[in-house]
């Protein structure tokens, strides 16, 4: 086989390899969401965050508008502090917007759902969402249900 054919096929191989890597990075991993992640951050305090994790989605009306950037525990107030990173184009949330930790489906992943309020001022970077609703823990509900059943008898 002559040198030209070898060099051409090797060139194709390298191009093909890089194309595969590029396709994996762009289409199959979260690299794109990384780039568009320079949003503004707001904090929300919850009694219980359930199974919420960093990078869980933040959604309004089912539309994904950001992600959870950090989760910390406030040792003084005994609350979990969740930092939400919201894309800059969604910047018109009233200050009395409420946040809740919801579950996609019965056993699906947990996400933060926002419910816009009615104030005229908008949330800015560093603001805190005051109206929050904690995650629903399935065990607690079942426990309550069982106790209420037992009380009836």
């Amino acid at each position: 086989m002559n040198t030209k054919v070898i060099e051409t096929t090797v060139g194709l191989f390298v191009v093909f390899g890089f194309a595969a890597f590029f396709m994996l990075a762009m289409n199959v991993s979260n690299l794109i969401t990384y780039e568009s992640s320079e949003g503004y951050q707001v904090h929300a305090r919850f009694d219980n965050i359930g199974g919420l994790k960093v990078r869980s989605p933040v959604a309004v009306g089912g539309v994904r508008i950001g992600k959870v950037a950090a989760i910390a525990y406030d040792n003084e107030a005994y609350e979990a502090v969740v930092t939400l990173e919201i894309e800059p184009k969604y910047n018109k949330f009233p200050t009395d917007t409420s946040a809740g930790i919801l579950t996609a489906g019965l056993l699906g992943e947990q996400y933060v759902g926002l419910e816009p309020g009615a104030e005229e001022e908008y949330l800015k970077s560093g603001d805190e969402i005051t109206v929050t609703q904690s995650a629903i823990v399935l065990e607690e509900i079942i426990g309550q249900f069982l106790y209420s059943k037992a009380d009836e008898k």
Partner: protein
Amino acid sequence: MIKNIQLLGQKLIATVARLGQASVFLYHILLTMPGVLIRPKLIIKQLYSTGVQTLIIILVAGTFVGMVLALQAYYVLVDFGAEDSISQMVVLSLMRELGPVITGLLFAGRAGSALTAEIGLMKSTEQLSGMEMMAIDPMQRVMAPRILAGFLAMPLLTAIFMAVGVLGGYLVAVHGVGIYEGVYWSLAQTKVDFYTDLMNGMIKSVVFGLVIVWIAVFEGHDSVPTSEGLGQATTRTVVHGSLAVLGLDFLLTALMFGDI
């Protein structure tokens, strides 16, 4: 009894000595690397025989591994009504483990054995000593381009394996069992991390590639120059190369994903 213990000690000392020889061998090759980089033609030729010629088996294996993963994931997940998660299962297992490991095993079998046989034959026909007589360093002319080519080819082959596997999984998930196309891609995008999943898989593949060509070239150079010795050296390359891939994979996985 004493004799058996002595035998064990003998084996161990021989193994350690061989490991030392292999390290010195690699060190010598690395020293000649600057000279190789000036002559990229040699590397391109080796990229052809280690990379391009391994491509077909990688493409076929990748497609089928992806398809089988999707099918098996579907059978299990459908019981929980979670069959949408197929893509997560397929992509994560391909990127973290199966991509680098299966590519490494195939690479050891296809490219590693060929390297050992080639260099072993060069040794037994005294081409290597011939080069030395002509004041050409066989380390630089023969070994170094092969090491470098394997080092470059493995990550490319792994990326291709992963991509083809993901597409194979897509074929089964979307056209076979009827997952929505958008669900397949979007779930992969939200659940797969570029750094912890894709890049760690690529790091693994680079390490595997280096270890496999190292073993292959060393075994060829160290082989007994008879037809029997050549056969044994080739077998050792495949066996040791595969074992090294599997063992290192555990170590690297523990290091990379251990504390998450």
